[in-house]
Each structure stands twice: as C-alpha cells, then as structure tokens.
C-alpha cells in the first residue's frame, strides 16, 4: 500500500502522517481540526501530490447544502430549452450536473477529496452526508441512476471548530488535532517556504512571534501562515535583524486586531 510522507513543501509531523495512513487503511474520512493557519487545507494538497492523485476541493460555505455536493438538476435551463424545443430536452441526464462529491465518486481513478471547513455549513449538514460518505454512493431521483464510487476517494475533512459536529458523523471519522508546531518544526516549515532565509533573522522573528503568542490576554493568536508572511515581508524589506524586536516592523502582518496591536506595542513583549 502506498504511504503518505512529508513532501518538499509540506512538513507533516509523524502523528499527522500516521493519521492519514490509518484513514486510508481503514477507508474512513479523516477529520482534521486545529488552530487556523496550521495547514489543515494544505494537508489535502500535500497528500494528493505525494500520492500522485487528483485533488477535488469542495469548499463549504454557510449556504452550502449537502445536495450541492451530490448533484444539481438545472431545471431553469431545461425550462428555457423546453420553450423552443431544443434538442435533448427530454433527456434529463443532460441537465444533471454532478457536484464535487459526485465528481469524486465518478472518477475512473482514486482521487483525494477535500471537504474544506465543514463547520461553516448548517448544523445539519454533516448528518445529511452520513450515508453518502459511508456507502460512497447516492441515487439521482430524476434519472433513476445510482452514482457509486468506482474507487473510494481519500476523504479529508477540515474543521475550525466553529460549530460542534454531530456524534453520528464523528463516529465515522478518524480524528486528528494538529498541534501548534514546536519551534523546531516551525523552523523546518518556514525553511520549506524560504530555503535561503537568514538564520539570525528567522530566529529573531520566531522569538518575537512565540512571545506574542504567549502574551496572556492576546485576543487572536498569530498563526503559522502569518509568521511565514511576516518572514517574507522582513526579507523583502531588508530589515536588519537587530531592529526586529525593538521596532517591530510590519507587525500588522502578524497582529491583526487593534487591541492586540496596542498590547504588543505597549510592551506586552518583555
């Protein structure tokens, strides 16, 4: 069996890699939670790349319905076409468009399906997908056709924990919580993005970054992706290392809230 490993531009912890491999072996969806900016979405990309499979992304929004992922029956188009007796109006199948989940089932090869930010959707959303994710098939009422996965897709689901997910759904998943990276892992991660980053600059930036995260009453903790942006800005700006802590250049990249900014500037950083 193929196993997932860290790729050139995605550094995964052993536990994370193991969780992907377990989920594949047990053929269950992998549910990934973690602070924003810890690379939940990137994981799916990395898995697809490492395994040489196509990635299908289903981005969930607050208005997304489970049905949207299966198929959409374009009745309006059919209505218009019907007016002028266009060819093929009586073929309903022509107006059935598969959603992302349907697309993933219908592929001739195994794909990686990312259901991104499942918690954005309605409370009932995950429940509506139980059968489909369990059996990897669904039925199109209008055409009396059953779409069944030819190859069980590798399903990766991310959640920012904005809403609690129903138990019945959770029971069917493999769960992994991405811890905030330790300094060592963080260094690796930044270096994957900027292989030539100067060690001193990186160290100074990371020290400030972790200090900000440790400020007790900070409202929004800065995340990995914000550190990466900041290191990039510092490099482009050619800021001398010694000045990073004293003048906090481009700090707006890391700290986004007014209150936090004040806190950091007022010397929350000791």
């Amino acid at each position, binding site marked *: 069996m193929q196993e997932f490993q860290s790729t050139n531009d995605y550094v995964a912890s*052993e536990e994370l890699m*193991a969780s992907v491999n*377990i989920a594949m072996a*047990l053929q269950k969806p992998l549910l990934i939670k973690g602070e924003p900016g810890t690379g939940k979405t990137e994981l799916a990309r990395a898995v697809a790349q490492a395994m040489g499979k196509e990635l299908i992304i289903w981005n969930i929004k607050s208005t997304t319905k489970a049905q949207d992922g299966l198929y959409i029956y374009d009745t*309006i188009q059919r*209505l*218009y076409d019907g007016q002028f007796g266009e060819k093929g109006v009586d073929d309903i199948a022509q107006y059935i468009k598969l959603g992302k989940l349907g697309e993933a089932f219908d592929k001739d090869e195994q794909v990686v399906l990312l259901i991104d930010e499942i918690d954005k959707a309605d409370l009932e959303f995950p429940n509506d997908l139980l059968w489909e994710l369990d059996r990897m098939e669904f039925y199109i009422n209008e055409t009396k056709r059953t779409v069944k996965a030819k190859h069980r897709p590798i399903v990766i689901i991310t959640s920012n924990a*904005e809403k*609690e997910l129903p138990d019945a759904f959770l*029971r069917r998943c493999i769960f992994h919580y991405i811890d905030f990276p330790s300094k060592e892992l963080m260094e690796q991660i930044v270096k994957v993005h900027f292989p030539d980053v100067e060690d001193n600059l990186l160290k100074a930036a990371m020290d400030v970054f972790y200090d900000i995260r440790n400020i007790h009453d900070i409202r929004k903790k800065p995340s990995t992706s914000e550190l990466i942006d900041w290191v990039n800005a510092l490099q482009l700006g050619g800021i001398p290392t010694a000045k990073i802590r004293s003048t906090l250049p481009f700090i707006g990249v890391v700290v986004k809230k007014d209150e936090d900014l004040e806190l950091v500037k007022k010397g929350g950083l000791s």
Partner: protein
Amino acid sequence: MFLTFFETLRAKGVHVTLGEFLDLQEALDKGLCGSSITQFYYVARMILVKTETDYDKFDMAFEECFKAAERETEIGAQMLRWLDKSEMLELAHEEARNHLNQTEDLQIDKDDVEEKFKQRLKDQNEEHNGGSFWIGTMGKTSFGNMGGNVGGVRVGGQTGYQSAFSVVGARKYRDFRDDRVMDNRQFQLAFRRLRQFSANLDIPESELDIDRTIDKTCSQGGVLSIQMKKPRKNAVKLMLLMDSGGTMIPYSSLLNDLFQAVNKSNHYKDVKCYYFHNCIYSHLYKTPECENGDWVETEWLFRNADSDYKVIIVGDAAMAPEELYSDSGNYRGPNGGLSGYEWLKLVKRHYKKVVWLNPKMAPGRSPWREAETACKELFPMYKLTVAGLNKAMYELMKPQK
C-alpha cells in the same frame, strides 16, 4: 482485546462506541499499530477520540491501563495479551510504587509522597523542554485525592514520534477539557427559533420569484422570463447580558455552553455580549472577570444598540435587597446614582423584548426570594434548561402586544 481499556475510557467520560472499538480491532488486525505502544497510542486516539477536549481524558485512561508497559518501547503480541489482564495491571502498579520507594530511598508517608509527586510534576514540565525527562504519573488512586500512583520511570526518547507516555505525562491537552454537562447542540438548536426573516439585506438574488416570473412571462406573450429575488435572511439582533457574580460560579459550565451556543449561531445579524456582577448598574463589563475599567457604559449601550435587540439576561437574581434597592450600596463598579432596580427598569423600558434566564429559579411564586420575585415582575423569567430556553425563545419571537 483490551476490554478493560474500553471500559476505563467510558468510565473516564470518553464516549467510545462499540463501532469505533471494532474499528480499532480492525486496525490492530491490519497491523497498523506496528509493535510499539506509542504507535498504538496514536492509532487508538485517532479512532476512539473525536474531539481535542477529550484528549486529556483519553490520556488518563490510557495511562491507567497501559502504565506497566511504559518502559517497553517495543512490545510483541505476547506482551499485548499480557497487558490485557487486569490482575497484572495491579501487579504493575504495585511494582511502580515499590520503584518509587526505592528511588526515593526511604520510607515516606502519604503527605510526603504527595509533596514529592507535585514536585515531580513540576520538574517534569521543566525538564520536558530540555529533551530528556522523567515522568511522574497520575493514575489509580492509592494516595488520597491527588490520585497518585506514583512512579518515576525514565522513558527513552524516540526520534520522530513523541513517545506516548511523554504525551500522557505532560498532559498537554489538559486545557482542552471542557467537562460539559449538556451537549450544547441542543442549545444551538433552541437558538434557531430566533428567526425573523427580512429580504432587505445586501445579498445576491438567488431564489426564484414565482409571482414575478409568471407576470413577466405573461406580459411577454408567453416567452419565458425567469425572475430572481433575494432570499430572506434572519434580521434578529441578539444581546446577551450575563451575571458573573460569585453565586453564579457553580453554573459556569452551563453558562459557558450557552455562550458557546450563541457564539456559534452565525445566523444572527448581530450578537452583543456583556457581563454584570450580581445586578446591572451603570457599567457593563466586556469580560466575565468583571474588571473595573474594562467596561462600557450601560447608557452607551442604550444609545448604540437600538430597541430592536432581543435581550437575554442570564443570572440567578439572588441580589441582596440593598444590591437591588439601595442607590448608594457598596457595589463592584459605579452605579450612576441609581439603584439596581432602577437600572433594570431602564433596560425594560429601552428594549422591546427582554427575557431572563435563571439557572436556579424557584418554581412558582417564592416570596422568600425577594430579589427573584422582583425581577420576575419586570421580566419573564425562565429556568436555564433546554425546555426553559425554548420557552424563552418563543417569548422573544412573540409579536408585540
């Protein structure tokens, strides 16, 4: 296999189902755990635990069941079976206790053990960062409330994986625990009752307007013309005022649930949340700690949050009479020259819809609880339960008399 582990997990409050446990067996059969207890730890956690808030409970259960194996980084199938027996577990605990006594090199009494145990826990955290460390463990209780079956056992550092017992020992998921009494999904569902649809919002037209479509199509002599309209959206604005006084402490997890439920309901137009200490006076606090200075003026709130806000006051309404009626009492924070009762009347006057949720409301009339009775006269009061919340939501949505 590992039925004891299953039972321990459930006893610790991790709601593992049989299905999940069978999944774990399948993983074992497929050899996904390899032959290391550390890998077993991670695989079991991925399959059995579905929220990071339960990681800590899982750690405790894992430790209780498999503590004896912690010096073994590699264990064979034989060993796993051996671990499965509970009487051996007891023996292992015994051994660990002896081990402690030896290393401490003297006979010690319980207090002493506790003291050392605390020290050990502290040391361990410090050393943990250093790289090689000792692990003091909490598990089956032998020594009073600390629950300390104490052993200091060196765990060999592994590369890559963080060893299971170093994770367990560090208890790094302790902060995630929530120990919630009630699943707040029920609360969230109750809050969905607060809906007042309005189509005057700034959103794309994504719904078929049947009436206008028919009109337009007819006026074009039957040539179809599809008309769309904006879907109707919830226009409810919600304000939550929560009591954070000392008498509310027993209910903090309940309040937390309520707060989470409101916070996670993203279908409101706006949600405001403020705190008060025992009774509402001239200032409302921004945080539950109610620190003076970190507040807004109640009058500012009246000015900035119009009367359409639906107000939910959460509190036990157990003010002392002087807290409610005196205008010069010794309160936390200023009162602007008015008594608490006057302030409550102002709230009532300003907002069209106010309900009070009380976690320990007395049933019916209860004249001995003077403050509660007074508040009940001002606002409709409901007990803070799922049923009470549902009634309160109904009250908030009732048309104005």
